[in-house]
């Protein structure tokens, strides 16, 4: 079967500025593709190009195997939630949601059913007779969602559809979307900057930067094996610690030497057999630096560190220290004894680290 | 230095040249002339402007006004008295009595006449008449007979433009012919109800209905000069129109008597349309001096001659030598003299000389409604009486 969406060598410019450069992505029926990337990297533009709302400067967009490059948006059989909502200002919430169905000649009863269902999912039942101008930000966003959810298209496009919802509602919505995805086997392209959303929803994540795709992979691949420094740095919150280090191969494995603020250095040993250049950047996620007493993993290496800052954050406490000239964050227990200025024994999980070349930024292991 | 701001509606080429003569004379006598022309709607626009000017306390020195309108403005108390000029120049004797009557307001002179247009003219294409062996008609029956003949020959008997004032123009010519001068005066000057509802009046409307049959079907809204063109081209044979139509013939290089013929419309009498200047009350000696100078010049021999040569009308004063005028004008002047003597020199109602606007308008409404529909003459007469009553 042809991929449901296939983007080949897509280029897009606004005037002389190239916004999207050589985008190649394909997703299968039922895939859930999440687009992530820094603000302004071209995610919305890519969605717009897929929807046919912006003319593309090069390449092609195929949906369901057909070249859609010159097909108008309304014939592409897609539903879309806009980052800016784009509600119809003169229609009530109910009309906003049912209008598409009405136009397609769906009968009244079905319309009413679907409306009721979606309104209940989105918790907007009391708002159905309001105009968009009289809604709160989050309510507007939910209406925008509703407009897409009543449809039954080949492809859903969501542009940060939950950004204005409170955490609780967001979790519920996320679940709704996931179940919609599973129930209908619908294909989705989803833009978000919420890492948890990306991780829990995606079957495939695309990380973009400045209009160029950095990595495509499953959430686990992206999280655990970032393809380059950018991805490593971008995914995960708090971000992965990226610490310049010297690598030296030895018989017991590779020793990694990291400069301390106080002078001297901290030495860790990775027992795997790696062939690393001398200058590397070691990437280690905060949750892989823990209180020594708490963890005892096979690949853990313990070391003492002087903590600079302690930031309690409910379930965890973050500790910041300086290593290799960088601020390094560790995620400790909420009840950790760590305190600023005090030496603390920490465990580094070397089974989970990534190594990058400082010059190219590419992954080495 | 005498100054005058003159509100008038003579703006076409020939008219403008005529006024320029006056301005020149005025300037030669040391006066300074400010021109304030406002054409349109047979002077309606000028009257609109005049009203606004008077109300804003900024009346012009002299205004082209005619007929009963002069008296109406006088009643508003805004006219000046120029009796001194009139008496010094002996207007009483040089002007026909009925025309002089229009220039006086409760015995004092308040306006100066410029010219006399004859309205009840009938114009004809000489060639067409010749070809069909037709003489200029002198009664309406003759006219009808000639018209029938022409119609058979495939020629439009009567060129006419379907605008209310043109309808009224032929109407008054017909009325004068059928009612006779006295009947006309009773009906359209004195608004005598008996005459208005008489059988003769029904006959007038009947004749109008007959005339309607001699007009081509496309006449609605046609300008009078296009109708004149039709006569000129031989498309049509006759046109009933004031003597300004002569200007169109002349402008096209036609010669009276050869290319086209002029005759008074069938019947006795002479309907005149006299243009005149009324003087408004203004402040300032220079303006007052201007008014007097203007009045004097307007009625002066020279201006009366030159102006009317240009304009196609005839002088208001009867003592101007007519050597330079064309045959039609001379005919007009003779007729005026004769009519004046036989008390058949009558004001044109269609051109606002006989009645106040409201009454004249009421009559025109009926005339044009009748002419443009299949209303019966009896109904028309009834409407006429009602309309006049309602306009009082």
């Amino acid at each position, binding site marked *: 079967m042809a991929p449901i969406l296939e983007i080949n060598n897509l280029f897009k410019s606004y005037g002389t500025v190239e916004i999207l450069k050589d985008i190649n992505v394909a997703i299968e029926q039922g895939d859930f593709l999440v687009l992530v990337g820094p603000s302004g990297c071209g995610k919305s533009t890519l969605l*717009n190009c897929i*929807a046919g*709302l912006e003319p593309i400067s090069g390449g092609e967009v195929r949906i369901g195997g057909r070249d859609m490059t010159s097909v*108008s*948006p*309304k*014939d*592409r*059989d897609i*539903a*879309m939630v*806009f980052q*800016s909502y*784009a*509600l*119809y*200002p*003169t*229609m009530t919430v109910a009309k906003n949601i049912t*209008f*598409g169905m009405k*136009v*397609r000649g769906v009968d009244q009863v079905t319309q009413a059913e679907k409306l009721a269902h979606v309104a209940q999912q989105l918790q907007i039942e009391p708002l159905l007779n309001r105009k968009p101008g009289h809604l709160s930000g989050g309510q507007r966003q939910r209406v925008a969602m509703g*407009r897409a959810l009543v*449809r039954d298209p080949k492809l859903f496009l969501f542009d940060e559809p939950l950004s204005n919802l409170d955490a609780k509602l967001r979790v519920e919505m996320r679940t709704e979307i996931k179940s919609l995805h599973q129930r209908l086997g619908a294909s989705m392209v989803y833009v978000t900057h919420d890492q948890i959303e990306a991780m829990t929803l995606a079957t495939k994540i695309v990380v973009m930067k400045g209009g160029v795709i950095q990595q495509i992979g499953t959430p686990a691949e992206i999280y655990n094996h970032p393809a380059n420094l950018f991805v490593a740095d971008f995914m995960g919150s708090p971000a992965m610690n990226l610490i310049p280090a010297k690598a030296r191969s030895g018989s017991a494995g590779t020793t990694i030497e990291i400069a301390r603020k106080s002078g001297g250095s901290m030495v860790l040993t990775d027992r795997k057999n790696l062939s690393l250049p001398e200058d590397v950047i070691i990437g280690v996620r905060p949750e892989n630096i823990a209180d020594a007493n708490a963890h005892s993993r096979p690949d853990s290496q313990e070391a003492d560190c002087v903590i600079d800052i302690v930031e309690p954050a409910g379930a965890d406490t973050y500790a910041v220290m300086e290593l290799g000239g960088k601020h390094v964050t560790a995620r400790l227990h909420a009840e950790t004894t760590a305190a600023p200025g005090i030496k603390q024994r920490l465990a580094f999980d070397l089974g989970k680290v990534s190594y990058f070349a400082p010059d190219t930024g590419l992954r080495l292991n | 230095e005498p100054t005058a701001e003159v509100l008038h509606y003579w703006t076409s080429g020939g008219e403008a040249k005529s006024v320029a003569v006056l301005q020149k004379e005025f300037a030669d006598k040391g006066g300074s002339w400010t021109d304030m022309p406002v054409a349109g*709607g*047979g002077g*309606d*626009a000028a*009257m*609109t402007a005049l*009203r606004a000017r008077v*109300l804003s306390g900024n009346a012009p020195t002299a205004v082209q006004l005619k007929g009963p*309108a002069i008296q*109406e403005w006088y*009643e*508003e108390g805004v006219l000046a008295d120029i009796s001194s000029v009139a008496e010094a120049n002996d207007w009483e004797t040089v002007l026909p009595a009925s025309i002089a009557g229009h220039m006086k307001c409760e015995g004092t002179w308040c306006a100066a006449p410029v010219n006399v247009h004859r309205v009840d003219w009938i114009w004809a294409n000489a060639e067409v008449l010749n070809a069909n062996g037709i003489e200029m008609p002198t009664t309406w029956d003759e006219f009808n007979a000639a018209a029938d003949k022409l119609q058979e020959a495939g020629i439009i008997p009567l060129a006419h433009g*379907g*605008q*209310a004032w043109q309808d009224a123009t032929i109407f008054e010519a017909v009325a004068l012919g059928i009612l006779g001068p006295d009947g006309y005066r009773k009906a359209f000057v004195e608004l005598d109800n008996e005459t208005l509802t008489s059988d003769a009046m029904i006959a007038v409307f009947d004749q109008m209905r007959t005339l309607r049959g001699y007009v081509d*079907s*496309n*006449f*609605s*809204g046609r*300008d009078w000069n296009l109708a004149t063109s039709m006569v000129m081209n031989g498309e049509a044979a006759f046109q009933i129109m004031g003597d300004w139509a002569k200007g169109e013939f002349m402008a096209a290089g036609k010669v009276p008597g050869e290319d086209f013929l002029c005759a008074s419309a069938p019947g006795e009498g002479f309907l005149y349309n006299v243009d005149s200047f009324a003087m408004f009350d203004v402040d300032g000696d220079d303006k007052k001096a201007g008014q007097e100078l203007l009045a004097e010049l307007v009625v002066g021999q020279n201006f009366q001659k030159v102006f009317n040569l240009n304009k196609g009308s005839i002088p208001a004063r009867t003592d101007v030598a007519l050597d330079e005028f064309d045959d039609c004008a001379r005919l007009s002047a003779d007729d005026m003299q004769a009519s004046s003597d036989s008390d058949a020199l009558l004001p044109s109602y269609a051109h606002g000389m006989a009645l*106040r*606007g*409201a009454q004249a*308008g009421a009559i025109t*409404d009926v005339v*044009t*409604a009748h*002419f*443009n*529909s299949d209303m019966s003459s009896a109904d028309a007469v009834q*409407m006429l009486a009602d*309309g006049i009553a*309602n*306009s009082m």
Partner: protein
Amino acid sequence: MIKWLEENTPKLVLAPSFIAVLIFVYGFIAWTAWVSLTRSRLLPKYEIEGFIQYERLFASPRWETAFGNLFVFGTLFIVIAMVLGLALAILLDQNIRTEGAIRTIYLYPMALSMIVTGTAWKWILNPGLGLEAMVRGWGFENFTFDWLIDPDKAIYTIVLAAIWQSSGFVMALFLAGLRSVDGEIIKAAQVDGIPTWRVYTAIIIPAMAPIFLSAFIVLSHLAVKSFDLVIALTGGGPGYATDLPATYMYAMAFSRGDIGQAASSAMIMMLVVFSIVVPYLYSELRSKDG
């Protein structure tokens, strides 16, 4: 003091217009009402005589025609001009390359004084000179187009010329409205699979409701005040078949020196306007608050 000034700036800004309107519109309407109760002729008089002017007005067959014409003319003109203006605006909104030129062509009739265009129209509509003669000249001997000279149909030629003159402006008004609708919303509709015509009818046009109010007011104002048009095209004829209240009033006030009569007809005209515009205005302004 400064604070007071600041709080009341919006009202102060409106004040001059408000005062001007009070005096120069409502004051003058009151003046007209007064005059309509007098026997004013050439110039206004102020002795009240009662309702004679209204009695005269309603006894006048010409007024009857004029008044009836107002409804025929007004309805046709407003509806057609609105529909045509909107249609043209929508067509022009389709990324037309020569938009500027076409827009100017549609608009230019407004630029020319009706004093003269009326003459051109008169010729075009005249069966013996214009369209009918032309088409017959092409060999269609039976073609007739003689509304101008038919007392029952002449009013439609006025409608035609009026539409010709004003629909371009209505188009411009709607075009401005169309251009102010947020593009994102249109995109959303496209993705929603809404056909273009529905995008216009269901989304863009409702969003332009206030612009409709503008167009409606402009057109009804033109309908009520149409004056030069009639004078230039038919002069009210044939007979007075194409008279409108505005021409009636003008004739009374300025050709016939019957100002009292003119004032009474003006009052009736304004009454008509009032009864049509006020309900519309009410619903329009209400829905804005709701």
